[in-house]
């Protein structure tokens, strides 16, 4: 098979607002205006076939919302999402057929598995819904194969989720995600609820599966070290926007956006090289009242008047892009 150079997934200027207004009666009585929270605002990127693109950022930056917009758990407010060249929102495309080719793995394996179902049924549900097995016998064999693939025993299918540890539950989630033969997996913090030694097992498993099945991953995480380990390319998000997008090697070797630099500085230094850490000032601003201009300007040591008034665009080529006036002007 010829390697396909077209991107598997393309996001074009997508956005999502959440209405966080007070109830209608309060608005009428108190004269309070409608209030919109721009959770994701103008995000564009492409995911190539077979690669792992990671989105990183602190809580509230909109990374999980992007994941949910892609798999269709939220509707878009603006922009478009193309999967394999087809617009998911276009009535002419069979969106459900496209969405079958993507699956999602969630953060909390305690909440994402139905406690009343046996593991066998949890893993088989997509097979049944999508009618992928001709006979009950074929379905049983497929489930057994999936469980073996994620390092569990086929006999585990008879048990209930509570009989498994956190790491084993996440393996079950992965088996369920793979049961519909997807090409694209959206993984929302898949290892954040796990202990480090279990996290290592799951990350190794995900790498193996990607190699064996040719999967494409969108990997959402707040942990830069995990991202540096698993990602080919990395997008850094801040307050609903992508501020830097680059190949993992170059991003971690030479971060360009001041926010990316700050994040890198904030990671505890496990090697104890004794390098001085720049203390990080301030906190993420209230997303209901984001600062004008660049959202990072109140915390940025390089901010000037332009940063406070004009919003920077994500500039650069496909390989590396950064949304920062200081970088654009060569001040940084």
């Amino acid at each position, binding site marked *: 098979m010829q390697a396909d150079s077209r991107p598997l997934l393309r996001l074009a200027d997508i956005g999502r607002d959440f209405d966080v207004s007070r109830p209608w009666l309060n608005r009428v009585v108190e004269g309070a205006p409608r209030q919109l929270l721009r959770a994701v605002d103008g995000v564009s990127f492409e995911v190539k076939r077979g690669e792992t693109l990671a989105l990183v950022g602190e809580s509230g930056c909109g990374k999980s919302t992007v994941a949910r917009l892609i798999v269709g758990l939220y509707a878009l407010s603006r922009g478009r999402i193309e999967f394999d060249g087809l617009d998911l929102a276009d009535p002419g495309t069979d969106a459900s057929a496209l969405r079958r080719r993507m699956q999602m793995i969630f953060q909390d394996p305690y909440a994402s598995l139905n406690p009343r179902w046996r593991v066998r049924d949890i893993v088989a549900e997509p097979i049944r819904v999508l009618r992928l097995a001709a006979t009950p016998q074929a379905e049983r064999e497929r489930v057994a194969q999936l469980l073996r693939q994620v390092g569990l025993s086929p006999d585990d299918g008879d048990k209930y989720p509570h009989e498994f540890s956190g790491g084993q539950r996440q393996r079950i989630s992965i088996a369920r995600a793979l049961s519909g033969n997807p090409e694209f997996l959206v993984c929302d913090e898949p290892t954040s609820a796990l202990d480090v*030694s279990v996290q290592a097992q799951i990350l190794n498993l995900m790498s193996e599966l990607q190699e064996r099945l040719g999967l494409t991953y969108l990997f959402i995480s707040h942990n830069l070290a995990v991202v540096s*380990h698993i990602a080919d390319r990395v997008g850094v998000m801040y307050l609903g926007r992508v501020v830097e997008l680059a190949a993992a090697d170059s991003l971690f070797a030479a971060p360009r956006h001041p926010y990316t630099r700050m994040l890198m500085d904030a990671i505890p230094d496990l*090697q104890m090289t004794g390098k001085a850490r720049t203390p990080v000032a301030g906190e993420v601003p209230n997303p209901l009242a984001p600062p004008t201009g660049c959202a990072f300007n109140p915390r940025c040591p390089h901010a000037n008047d332009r940063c406070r008034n004009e919003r920077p665009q994500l500039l650069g080529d496909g390989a590396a892009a950064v949304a920062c006036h200081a970088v654009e002007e060569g001040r940084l």
Partner: protein
Amino acid sequence: MSATPLLEVKGLRVEFPTRRGTLVAVDDVSFAIAPGEVLGVVGESGAGKSLTGMAIIGLLEPPGRIAAGEIRLEGERIDNLPPDRMRKVRGRRIGAIFQDPLTSLNPLYTVGDQLVETILTHLDVDKAEARQRALRLLAEVGIPAPEARIDHYPHQFSGGMRQRVVIALALCAEPRLIVADEPTTALDVSIQAQIIALLKRLARDHGTAVMLITHDMGVIAETADRVAVMYAGRLAELGPVREVIHQPRHPYTVGLMGSIPKIGLVKRHARLVQIDGAMPRLNAIPPGCAFNPRCPKRFGRCTVERPEPLPAGNALASCWLYADASR
């Protein structure tokens, strides 16, 4: 290390009697903390690190109980104090910081009320003086404009600021020991770094001993002087933080360190070191060394005889590999 430790824990054993037998959650754990020292206690979920902390501050939830061992604060035994006397020790001589700042603060009182109440409970001062003290504490933990913030309610603070209030609350009576249980886990990395720096500065300035309980080796590396690694309720390794991180001796610590993804050091997509299996449940701890079923270096003695903490370099490792070195 100082000759008189501030906190001394000897042979601590915490049990949970259940209908199906007694579960031993902390088993024969001994360590000491010197004044001004930060001891990191690290381990995965269920390793017994939080229960060790709870036993020290006297807040074990029944039916959990201290079944053996002793805990001494400045030479005085505190593990067998009656509850009302222990309540005076807690807050006055031991301060506690927990993971979730929102549940540690009462949402119905302003932070000023909570600070003043705590100060009045433990120190012999009047109300005006207590408020002055509360203002100083808020300033010390880095809350901007304390005069305005002191009359705010907890929900008006962000997560990082709330954790600073909790730290101020723990410091109210100038305790000699602070037990901090996952103080940065609920916070974003950029805020986490600020809180770590704050804890370190306070320990140094006040000569307060800190027991820092966390699952995050990075936080330990940044903050602690010495580190205790716990596994299945037992102490696996105890030593200076540099030594344990750069040259771990216990096979569990070796595996734990290898399984942490590191930026720039591990080749991308290379496999992480992984410890197969999982930590045993408390009702199924294997005989001998608790780690032996997962240990790549296991030999005959490991499955029958439980290892004592043995000297390994400048550290102690509960592993039979170091049995000869100690002779």
